[in-house]
């Protein structure tokens, strides 16, 4: 149950790309008892090391701390806040949503002209980000300026919660919340770091993935791993109207293994390692539809002399939206699969001329 609380805290935390401090503190506190060394680098990545029992193989586990959000670009004389997107925001998702803005986390809403006044065109088209504004209830620009400044961030204001009746085990049932991409990956990584492994493990909680995998570049450079697993909350599109088309992933079918996304090709040896582990341990798994989305894998894979990399994801409906839905059984199966796979290392097989 404790970890569900952590997932709740991580989901609710304020952490858009470049301002991940709140998430970082939660994570540092959670992992400190389980790691030998904890380092925060110049960009804000958390690198947590577990030395293992001396076997010379270093595995990097990556999860990004940042979420998509908003940056205030201009305070209108009326007190409304203009903003830009931080990461990939879907403008269809924005009007009518609640946000928290600025360092004081002042609540606000993204407004839109009411139905009564909208033209036919406006009713059937999507309003661009630059035509929207956040309303924090200020009477004018001066009052708004007491709460927020240009350059402050905002994120969706969504409270984590159970959907339906909560199963008593805390390990199944569906939950809703914001920023499952990638706080669920962070939670999987925290849970995995609590285990003990033969090989050396470096947990990398990275910054700024949503704006171009910037944190992972330097984290991988510093960690110098022999192989890497990127942990994600990924697109589930088992939705109405999608019948016939292959879904990216489905809720409740287990962790999703990446074969290839738009940023990298997963190392087939590592794909097979995860499949073999899942089948041996009787853990459900699925493949994420190839060539969809991008991940920190794109940065880690080509670091230094190259890092064989695979991604493992918890399926989440409605990512990059104010509220996502995930199945806790997928979360726990992901943790189980990763921990079991790490326990199987070192194993027979070849990575270049060396063995893994």
């Amino acid at each position: 149950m404790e970890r569900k609380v952590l997932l709740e805290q991580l989901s609710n935390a304020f952490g858009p790309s470049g301002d991940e401090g709140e998430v970082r503190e939660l994570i540092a506190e959670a992992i400190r008892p389980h790691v030998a060394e904890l380092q925060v680098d110049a960009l804000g990545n958390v690198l947590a090391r577990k030395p293992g029992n001396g076997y010379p193989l270093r595995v990097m586990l990556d999860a990004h701390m940042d979420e998509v959000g908003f940056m205030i670009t201009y305070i209108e004389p009326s007190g409304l806040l203009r903003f830009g997107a931080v990461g990939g925001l879907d403008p269809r998702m924005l009007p009518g949503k609640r946000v928290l803005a600025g360092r004081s986390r002042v609540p606000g809403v993204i407004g839109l002209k009411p139905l009564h006044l909208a033209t036919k065109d406006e009713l059937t088209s999507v309003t661009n980000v630059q035509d929207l504004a956040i309303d924090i209830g200020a009477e004018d620009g001066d009052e708004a300026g007491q709460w927020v400044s240009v350059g402050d961030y905002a994120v969706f204001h969504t409270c984590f919660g159970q959907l339906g009746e909560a199963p008593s085990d805390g390990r199944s049932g569906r939950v809703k919340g914001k920023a499952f991409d990638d706080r669920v990956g962070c939670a999987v990584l925290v849970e995995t770091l609590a285990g003990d492994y033969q090989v050396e493990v470096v947990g990398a909680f990275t910054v700024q993935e949503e704006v171009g995998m910037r944190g992972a570049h330097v984290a991988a450079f510093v960690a110098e791993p022999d192989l890497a697993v990127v942990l994600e909350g990924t697109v589930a599109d088992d939705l109405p109207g999608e019948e016939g088309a292959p879904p990216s992933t489905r809720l409740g079918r287990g962790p999703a293994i990446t074969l290839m996304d738009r940023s990298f090709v997963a190392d087939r040896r590592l794909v097979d390692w995860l499949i073999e582990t899942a089948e041996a341990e009787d853990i459900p798994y699925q493949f994420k539809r190839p060539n969809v989305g991008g991940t920190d894998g794109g940065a880690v894979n080509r670091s230094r002399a190259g890092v064989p990399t695979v991604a493992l994801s918890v399926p989440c409906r409605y990512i990059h939206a104010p509220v996502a839905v995930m199945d806790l059984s997928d979360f726990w199966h992901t943790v189980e699969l990763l921990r079991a796979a790490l326990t199987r290392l070192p194993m027979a097989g070849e990575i270049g001329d060396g063995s893994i």
Partner: protein
Amino acid sequence: MNDTMKDLVRQLTAVQGPSGYEGLVRDVIRTQVEPLADVVRVDRLGNLHAVVRGQGSGLRVMVAAHMDEIGLMVTHVDEKGFARFTHVGDLWVATLVGNRFVFPNGAVGVVNVEKYEKRPRVENFDKLYMDLGASNGASCPVRVGDVATFDRSFLDLGARWVSKAMDDRLGCSILIEVMRRVGNQTPHEIHFVFTVQEELASQGAMTSAFSIQPDLSIALDVTGSGDLPGATPFPVVLGKGPVVRVSDRTTLVHPGVKGWMTRTAEAKGIPYQLEVIVGLASDAEKMQRSGAGSAVGVLSVPCRHLHTPSEMVDVDDVEHTVELMVALLAGLVDLERVG
């Protein structure tokens, strides 16, 4: 051009190796280069390094040709046994309909488009499917993640050769032939690298260059040609010799390297062509910028019908490219002289 070279190109182009899945190609090349190099190793991403330690105080030179080719990856198999797929590398939808693809397990599929009797204009992969002759999903011989390449054999047209993967098995073949002819008669420490994943983002060249830290790096690849009906004006033609690149979409070639290539060709009486190409990139981009960087050049062979199942090259161009490469690597390099 001797039959050995033709056999090598035929053998190497027949093997399957879409980006990320170059193992079969690597096995064949490894057998070829093992007797020719001082050190042969495979790195973590699967790049094959063959190092020749020359005699003297030359440079550390990296020469790269990529092993991977464009292909398809299965994304879904439906209950009727039809497979859906996505592209590995820059594949062109117009080349797919009606074509056949083969998987390493021997399975072959025919590609078609939904509602093909209406002759729809195909713009994306979502409407395409592959028919492997299976009567249902359970009997379909492939699964999600399996990769396929064009099912086309090598074609010998005498003066010209055609294959599904001239890009860049021809470059790999040329490097092997260059290794044979140069032996250890070079002042340089030469790292012949057969790279992975060029068709994606040159991940292999980037990581190899990081580990080698060369002074000078050369990409050996194929390039387009301007001698086709309706082609965009472009001076490179088949049969007029190897192509010395000046610039492409992502790279400005080191002027000293360009000058060294053209001077050497002129001194040896080898024909060459210059190219400024906007539509292509190569391993050179990543070699130029990896680690502390290196002076970079690109030598390429003109090729018609790039990224189709029938990439065509001229036999004389192949021989002249080998000769120029041998001449370049056998002598000292003066990068200060630009012209």
